[in-house]
């Protein structure tokens, strides 16, 4: 069976047929994705499957990463945080490192990028590459995965200078889009239903995972899976758990996450989380390696409720993963979580630890509600947030850019 056959089984034959129709006029074209890490974080996970799937449709596709030193990643982490609203200026030294690193990477990647028909640059890290490829042949798109709804203006003004010359940009939500002189597409990210992180696991494997982490399978389990990042509010999750535990003493909490190669702040946040959890034997703080996909899968399967109490969120793929596994999600009322958590249907949107605690108590008192919301959550992901829909939209916008984005109608029939 081909990869496309596998996806047809998971997402439906019609969905794959649409992909084939979209890919037919693009056959022979070359696509290059560029980001800054091959492991850790949602972007790498999406590209891991997006690239072979596009290849199988007959479109030559490459995935390149840019490299940099610790100053570069300190700068890009700063950009990430400031685009999400932190008001911290970036020093001239760091901005110089950013530009020099992009220039150095452009010297290596230049020939590939110059000849590609379509280049998709992910997030701020490689955004400046375009300025070093003036004789580019294809269409370039800047894909912003970040909640840039309230960026710190001086940093956005700086970055905008690199982004404006692109042919199009892609944001996850309308609220994140910025004023730019080119078409701005709205494409939510997605999960891969066939990845190690999302396949259905044998019960035995889930049980063994729980045992390994001293989780009692007989007691209610709340899980948040995310990087140890302040925007994910892990301390707020612990606060919510403590509030709920006063009323529901048996509950357990797992905070599980990995570090990402481009995230220098993770260690400091992890230390804060461990300090906050100290003394409670029902809280497990798990720092997992980037390839612990089955382990995360098992923890999400084992959960009664999944929490994603972010205070800023580009999209929240861990929310999508949990919903795919039929779990209700209590999520922060921000960013892309709002697209997925439909209040009272697939979970609850909350703004405070108190709100999260209230909903934890509500759901644990109504197991039928947990099941009902889980079924709806799975269906919503099937309809809207699988990688096949994501790829369909990328292929659509490639065709639109090739033929002139001003057309609002693309006829394949």
């Amino acid at each position, binding site marked *: 069976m081909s990869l496309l056959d596998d996806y047809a089984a998971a997402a439906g034959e*019609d969905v794959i*047929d649409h992909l084939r129709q979209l890919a037919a006029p693009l056959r022979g074209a070359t696509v290059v994705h560029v980001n800054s890490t091959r492991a850790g974080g949602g972007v790498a996970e999406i590209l891991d499957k997006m690239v072979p799937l596009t290849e199988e449709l007959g479109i030559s596709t490459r995935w390149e990463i840019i490299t940099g030193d610790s100053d570069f990643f300190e700068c890009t982490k700063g950009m990430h945080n400031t685009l999400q609203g932190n008001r911290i200026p970036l020093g001239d030294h760091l901005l110089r490192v950013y530009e020099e690193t992009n220039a150095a990477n452009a010297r290596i990647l230049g020939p590939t990028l110059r000849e590609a028909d379509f280049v998709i640059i992910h997030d701020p890290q490689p955004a400046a590459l375009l300025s070093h490829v003036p004789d580019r042949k294809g269409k370039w798109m800047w894909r912003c995965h970040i909640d840039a709804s309230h960026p710190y203006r001086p940093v956005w003004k700086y970055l905008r200078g690199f982004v404006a010359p692109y042919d199009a940009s892609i944001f996850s939500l309308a609220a994140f889009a910025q004023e730019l002189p080119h078409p701005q597409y709205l494409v939510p990210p997605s999960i891969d239903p066939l990845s190690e992180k999302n396949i259905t696991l044998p019960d035995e494997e889930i049980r063994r995972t729980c045992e390994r982490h001293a989780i009692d399978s007989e007691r209610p389990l709340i899980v948040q899976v995310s990087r140890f990042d302040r925007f994910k509010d892990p301390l707020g999750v612990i606060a919510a758990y403590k509030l709920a535990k006063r009323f529901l003493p048996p509950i357990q909490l797992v905070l599980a996450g990995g570090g990402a190669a481009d995230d220098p702040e993770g260690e400091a946040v992890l230390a804060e989380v461990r300090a906050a959890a100290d003394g409670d034997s029902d809280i497990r703080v798990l720092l997992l390696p980037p390839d612990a996909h089955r382990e995360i899968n098992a923890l999400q399967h084992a959960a009664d409720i999944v929490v994603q109490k972010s205070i800023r969120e580009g999209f929240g793929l861990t929310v999508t993963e949990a919903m795919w596994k039929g779990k209700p999600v209590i999520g922060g009322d921000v960013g892309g979580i709002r697209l997925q958590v439909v209040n009272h249907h697939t979970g609850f949107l909350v703004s405070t630890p108190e709100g999260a605690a209230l909903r934890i108590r509500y759901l644990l008192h109504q197991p039928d509600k947990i099941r009902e919301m889980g079924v709806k959550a799975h269906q919503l992901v099937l309809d809207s947030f699988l990688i096949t829909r994501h790829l369909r939209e990328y292929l659509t916008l490639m065709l639109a850019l090739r033929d002139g984005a001003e057309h609002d109608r693309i006829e394949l029939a």
Partner: protein
Amino acid sequence: MSARAGSIRKATPFKIKDCALVAMATGRRARLMPEFRREIATVPVQSIYHHFWGGLLQPRFEEREYNNDFAAWMRHSMHDAVLAERLAALDPTSCPELEALRREMLELIDNRLDEVEYLSWARASIQFEFLSSQIVIFDTGRTVSHPAELAENIGHLSTSSIFYHFIDARRRVPEGNNDFTLWMQSFGRDFEPLCASLTGVDPYFGSITELRQKLATIFQACVREHRS
């Protein structure tokens, strides 16, 4: 040869198509009523179309409280129930063109601003994002050669197929008609009652799943009558 057989021979098969929308930001947004009015007055008509019709293709778990995004925003973010109800009552199928719909909206907004002074400076809790969309049209590879065959199949078409043939068609087919009616006209007068019934269907109120069911019921009833 009967007239009916002759007309059937003339008709070309109906190609069943499917579609998907890709949303785009227009870069326009509004948090205050004067901003909202200004954007309604100047935003491309594709955006007005998207906010009246695009929601039908989005998965949802309950009846839409309001039938267009403008009315929903007016109620839940601007918190003006009166204008929300008036905007919700607008039926785009009754406007000959989108510019007329835009003028209707502006009239309602201006009237409401005259009625209630505070709305001129009220601030919405969440800003309105004006979107538009590109539509991509797929070939399902399936055709039907007679209305009776369409009657058997219409209940099984995807909701996006129904959207394409019955809603998007209004932008493509003369007199705001739909693809089914246009095709059945090639059968001469045989299916005029069916065409008339379809013209009477208002696709705007209700979900697209309900619309599909309604169309299936009409098709089956008319085809039964035609056979008898």
